[in-house]
């Protein structure tokens, strides 16, 4: 159905070709592009890269939280965390499937991740040291992810947009369970509140970095905006996130680890201090505290699952052979 062959005719399609002009006109008219429609090769490549990185982020993102499932402080918290991590796995699957509609193969995408060649969100290379980190992740990391994902529900590529609608519906519970954990800790003993503050101190800056480099330094923004893959700039989304999040933190009675943060009386926006982009570059390049550990965990899971994939394939082949030999017997 989604054969790449249908669209592969003209890889060097100049922006001036009639197809390219028609393509851009459709996008300008808010029409959606579907897998079998003509599209510039660069659009296809950009989407495969972005959607697969997004998928990898969901899958790797299961690891920092998975770390606390067995140590959740109550059955209620454990059930919620288990359900959240399960959802993230589902998000990864929706997204890989959306990338596959563009002609990429699942195996190829997973191999890129396991070989350390694909990027994923830098946030997941930070460690989860205490239970409060689970609260901070739900509140802040999922909060930032929601800010990023809501505009993607209107992305020009149909399968990606539809996957995002599904994902966004599920994310609300993720953020709320995180905030509830923070609220409980902040209403608890001084030690519990200190734990919540420590988690905010460690997660705040990495969360701001989740929106990517500042607009002045971003490479992909312009074309992505023109193609309506992106609707807001990195800085624009970051600002929306800060404005939504600061009042929530103040309600918890916590302090943000940014001495320069203040509300601009004229605009109402919360302004932040300088972000350490060197740290961001280092973490994205695989220098994060847990980068090696995350990939190691994925490789281990992939290798440990090899026998299941092999057994399923062998079983399917056996059934197909049996049915071919005697079509009247239901396999």
């Amino acid at each position, binding site marked *: 159905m989604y054969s790449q062959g249908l669209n592969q005719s003209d890889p060097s399609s100049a922006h001036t070709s009639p197809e390219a002009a028609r393509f851009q006109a459709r996008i300008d008219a808010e029409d959606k592009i579907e897998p079998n429609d003509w599209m510039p090769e660069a659009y296809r490549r950009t989407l495969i890269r972005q959607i697969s990185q997004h998928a990898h982020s969901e899958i790797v993102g299961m690891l920092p939280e998975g770390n606390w499932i067995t140590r959740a402080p109550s059955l209620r918290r454990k059930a919620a965390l288990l*359900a959240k991590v399960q959802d993230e796995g589902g998000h990864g699957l929706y997204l890989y499937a959306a990338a596959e509609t563009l002609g990429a193969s699942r195996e190829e995408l997973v191999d890129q991740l396991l070989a350390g060649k694909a990027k994923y969100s830098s946030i997941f290379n930070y460690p989860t040291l205490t239970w409060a980190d689970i609260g901070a992740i739900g509140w802040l990391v999922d909060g930032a992810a929601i800010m990023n994902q809501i505009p993607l529900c209107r992305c020009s590529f149909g399968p990606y947009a539809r996957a995002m609608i599904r994902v966004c519906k599920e994310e609300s*519970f993720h953020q*709320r369970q995180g*905030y*509830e954990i923070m*609220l409980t800790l902040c209403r608890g003993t001084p030690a519990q509140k200190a734990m919540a503050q420590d988690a905010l101190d460690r997660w705040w800056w990495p969360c701001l970095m989740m929106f990517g480099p500042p607009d002045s330094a971003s490479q992909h923004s312009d074309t992505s905006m023109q193609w309506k893959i992106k609707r807001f700039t990195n800085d624009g989304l970051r600002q929306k996130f800060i404005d939504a999040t600061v*009042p929530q933190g103040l309600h918890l009675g916590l302090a943000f680890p940014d001495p320069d943060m203040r509300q601009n009386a004229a605009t109402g926006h919360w302004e932040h201090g300088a972000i350490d982009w060197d740290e961001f570059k280092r973490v994205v390049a695989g220098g994060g505290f847990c980068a090696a550990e995350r990939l190691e965990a994925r490789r281990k899971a992939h290798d440990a699952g090899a026998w299941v994939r092999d057994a399923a394939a062998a079983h399917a082949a056996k059934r197909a052979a049996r049915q071919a030999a005697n079509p009247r017997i239901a396999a």
Partner: protein
Amino acid sequence: MSTPATPLWEVFIRSRSGLAHRHVGSVHAADATLAMQAARDVYTRRGEGLSVWIVPSNAIIASDPADKEMMFEPTASKIYRHPTFYEVPDEVGHM
């Protein structure tokens, strides 16, 4: 000798740009091309669609309605999968 039964096809229509295809019904047709024409004639006479998908009916793998409880009932007790399960004060805004 009787003619072989004409195969059945399932028809899916995308009603608006950006929406997923939805199942609308079935048609009988000798092959995929005829099925596409039949689906167009039968299901899109009033501008119902922008795109049609045709799938051989025997390619559909359906769950058994008798398994309904086994398949879906376990989620009923998992109310913690819903946002409303969590208490978030109104003052902090929508989440």
